[in-house]
């Protein structure tokens, strides 16, 4: 697993991995879209609108997952002096931001027909909006410091401070009354979703994950090269 901390090893592995991952993501996307549009049934309450879930939920999960991984890498980079963490953070932040944006847009498209509103300021929606702004601040910070040495560490500290928001996003629906419904799938209990609808959800999650990994590989490789040539 050394390629997760060592830029040179990562470069080697990434060259092998990139094409299979991209290929897999294309297959999974075709399969997932096929499932979510034609092979999955309508919901008993929401009818056909439930299909927005197959985009909304995976992007939300991945937005959180990306931030969580960034937090781990920040700790690793700051405490154990693993510079790959900084490379990872710089490269991956925009991907997380895009996932969050997809989540917000698809969510409000889902909310209009179902709840009757595009947006409300309940705890879940507000905390996701804050997550999006935090991602934006990370990106802007990466653009606005001149000294790379300061920039990457300050960004890592900011990611750590901002990670307070993660549990709030995750548990807001359990702690407080929100318009947003509680989590359907949690590890503690049996999912309250029918297998015929769970299948496309999981396929789409993996499809999103794969396309995320593929873009991340490209971006990390670019970042490594930029650093080697001292362009920034």
């Amino acid at each position, binding site marked *: 697993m050394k390629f997760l901390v060592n830029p040179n090893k990562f470069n080697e592995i990434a060259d092998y991995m990139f094409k299979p991952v991209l290929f897999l993501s294309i297959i999974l996307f075709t399969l997932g879209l096929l499932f979510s549009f034609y092979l*999955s*049934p*309508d*919901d*008993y*309450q*929401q*009818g056909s*609108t*439930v299909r927005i*879930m197959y985009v909304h939920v995976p992007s939300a999960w991945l937005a959180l997952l990306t931030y969580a991984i960034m937090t781990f890498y920040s700790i690793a980079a700051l405490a154990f002096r693993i510079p790959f963490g900084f490379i990872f953070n710089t490269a991956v932040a925009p991907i997380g931001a895009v996932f969050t944006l997809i989540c917000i847009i698809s969510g409000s498209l889902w909310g209009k*027909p*179902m*709840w*009757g*509103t595009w947006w*409300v*300021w*309940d*705890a879940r929606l507000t905390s996701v909006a804050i997550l999006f702004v935090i991602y934006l601040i990370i990106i802007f910070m990466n653009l606005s410091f001149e000294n790379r040495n300061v920039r990457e560490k300050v960004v890592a500290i900011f990611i750590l401070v901002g990670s307070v928001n993660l549990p709030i996003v995750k548990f807001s629906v359990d*702690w*407080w*009354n*929100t*318009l947003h*419904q*509680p*989590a*359907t799938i949690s590890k503690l209990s049996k999912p*309250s*979703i*029918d297998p*015929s*609808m769970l299948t496309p959800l999981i396929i789409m999650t993996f499809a999103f994950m794969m396309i995320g990994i593929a873009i991340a590989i490209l971006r990390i490789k670019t970042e490594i090269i930029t650093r080697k040539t001292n362009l920034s």
Partner: protein
Amino acid sequence: MSLRFQRLLFIMLTLVIILSAVLLILFNTRENVSYFYTPSEIDKSDIIINKIIRIGGFVENNSFNKISSSSFKFKITDEKASIPVTFKGILPDLFREGQGAVIEGVFIDKNIFNATNVFAKHDENYMPASIKEDLKDTGYWNKKYK
């Protein structure tokens, strides 16, 4: 005291402060960050007229009345208390009897709530429509699915 020990002490102190702060917040937020109140939480004697609040619950069965094409009357309940509501406007697709809903508006007098916005709330259960029919046919349809 060596520097290392001081540092350790400092870290412990920080962790204790953060932990106690988190507990303090968690114990106190439960009732406060609510997006809405439930009908039983609203004290009938303590209603403030014309103050905008949100109430969340279920639309009571057999309470929905259509007065005109865009004017409705129904009751919001949480099985302990129920509040009569009037609403003028467009209801969301999901709105029906037995379905969760959040309404936003004011009490125009102690017994009638005038909603300005109605949001339908759906739960975390997803189930194919065909299965619901099957369940109903065989009599296993559990109303608790809400």
